C-alpha cells in the first residue's frame, strides 16, 4: 500500500511500465527456448521468417504475462516479490493491462500464422489460453499442483518454435516440452521454500502452505530424480548429441546433489544460513535449463552441419 501512495495521481505510465507488464525475464527464456526449437527442427526458415516467428511467440508470451498481471494484481500486491509490478505499484491501470494483453494476444497469433503456419498460430493461441485462463484464473488459486500444471504453459514455446519450422510436432519437440515441464516444479518449489511468507500471506495454495515444507522438500527430490532420468535418457534420442550428453551428465549430477541436500535439511538448518542451499539450487536450476537448451542448439546447428558434410564425402 505504501508503494501506491508514492505514485502521484497524475502519473503518466511510460513505455517501460507497459513493457514490464510483459514479464521481460520470462520472455527472455521463451525467446531462447523457442529459438532452440526452431533451430533444432530439420527444416529451416529464412532469417526474416525465423526472426518473426521468435518475435511473435515472445509477444504472445508477453501478452499472457500481461493478462496474468491483470488477473493476479490482488495477489501480487501482497507478495514482496511481486509488489513492485506495474499494477500493484499503481503505475499502470488494471484495465490498460487487460487491453494490452488481449490486443497483443490477437496480434501475435495472427502474425505468427501469417509468418509461419496456422498450426503454429493455433498452438500459440492455446498456450496463451492455457497460461491466462487455465493456470492464472483457475488452477493457481485452487490446487497445490498449480506449479506442475502451470509448467506446461512455459514448456510450449520450443514446441511452437519447432512447429513454425516444420508444420508438425514430432516426438523430439515433445521431449523439449517434457524437459521444461519436469524442470518447473523443483525450480518453483525451491523458490517457494525461501520466499516462504509470500505465498502464505497471499493465500496461494503453494505446496509449502498446503502440505508443509517437509513434503515440499520430498517432492523436489522426487521430481528431480524423474527429471534427471528423463534428461539423460533424452541424450539417446533424435534430440540428443555429444554436447547434450556431456551437459546432461554434469548438470543432472549437480542438480540431483542439490535436491538431496535440500531433502536432508530441515527448517532450522535452512533458517540458520538463510536458505543458502535452496537459493543456490534455484540459481542452478536457471543454469540447468539454459545449458540443456544451449546444448540442443549446438548439437543441432553444429553437428548436423558436420554430419551433413561427412555424408557428402
Amino acid at each position, binding site marked *: 500500500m505504501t508503494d501506491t501512495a508514492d505514485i502521484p495521481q*497524475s502519473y*503518466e*505510465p*511510460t*513505455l517501460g511500465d507497459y513493457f514490464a507488464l510483459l514479464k521481460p525475464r520470462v520472455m527472455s527464456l521463451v525467446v531462447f527456448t523457442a529459438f532452440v526449437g526452431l533451430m533444432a527442427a530439420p527444416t529451416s526458415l*529464412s532469417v*526474416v*521468417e525465423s526472426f*518473426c516467428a521468435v518475435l511473435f511467440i515472445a509477444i504472445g508470451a508477453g501478452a499472457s504475462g500481461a493478462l496474468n498481471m491483470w488477473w493476479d494484481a490482488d495477489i501480487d500486491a501482497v507478495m514482496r516479490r511481486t509488489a513492485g509490478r506495474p499494477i500493484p505499484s499503481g503505475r499502470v491501470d488494471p484495465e490498460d493491462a487487460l487491453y494490452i494483453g488481449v490486443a497483443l494476444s490477437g496480434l501475435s497469433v495472427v502474425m505468427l500464422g501469417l*509468418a509461419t503456419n496456422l498450426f503454429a498460430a493455433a498452438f500459440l493461441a492455446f498456450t496463451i489460453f492455457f497460461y491466462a485462463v487455465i493456470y492464472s484464473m483457475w488452477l493457481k488459486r485452487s490446487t497445490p499442483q498449480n506449479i506442475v500444471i502451470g509448467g506446461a504453459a512455459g514448456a510450449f514455446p520450443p514446441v511452437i518454435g519447432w512447429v513454425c519450422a516444420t508444420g508438425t510436432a514430432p516426438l523430439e519437440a515433445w521431449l523439449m516440452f517434457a524437459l521444461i515441464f519436469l524442470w518447473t516444479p523443483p525450480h518453483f518449489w525451491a523458490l517457494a521454500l525461501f520466499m516462504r511468507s509470500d505465498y502464505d500471506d497471499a493465500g496461494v495454495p503453494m505446496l509449502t502452505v498446503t502440505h508443509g515444507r517437509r513434503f515440499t522438500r520430498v517432492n523436489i527430490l522426487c521430481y528431480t530424480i524423474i527429471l534427471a532420468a528423463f534428461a539423460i535418457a533424452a541424450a539417446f534420442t533424435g534430440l540428443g548429441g555429444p554436447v547434450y550428453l556431456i551437459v546432461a551428465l554434469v548438470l543432472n549430477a549437480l542438480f540431483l546433489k542439490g535436491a538431496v541436500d535440500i531433502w536432508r535439511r530441515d527448517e532450522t538448518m535452512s533458517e540458520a544460513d538463510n536458505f543458502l542451499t535452496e537459493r543456490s539450487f534455484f540459481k542452478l536450476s536457471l543454469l540447468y535449463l539454459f545449458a540443456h537448451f544451449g546444448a540442443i542448439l549446438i548439437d543441432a546447428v553444429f553437428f548436423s552441419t558436420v554430419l551433413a558434410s561427412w555424408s557428402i564425402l
Partner: protein
Amino acid sequence: MKVEHELHQRRRGRNIGVGLLLAAFIGLIFALTVAKVTSESFQLPNIEQGAGE
C-alpha cells in the same frame, strides 16, 4: 504550469516510443513480405481456380 509541462514531456516520450514501434512493425511486415514473395516456393494464387475453393 511546470507540472503540466512535465506531464507533456513524459507523454511525448511515450508517444515517440509507440511511433518508433509502429514504424519498426511496418518495416518488419515489409521485410517479411519480401522474404515470402522471393522464396522459391512462392506461387501467385490462381484466381480462376481459387474462386471456386
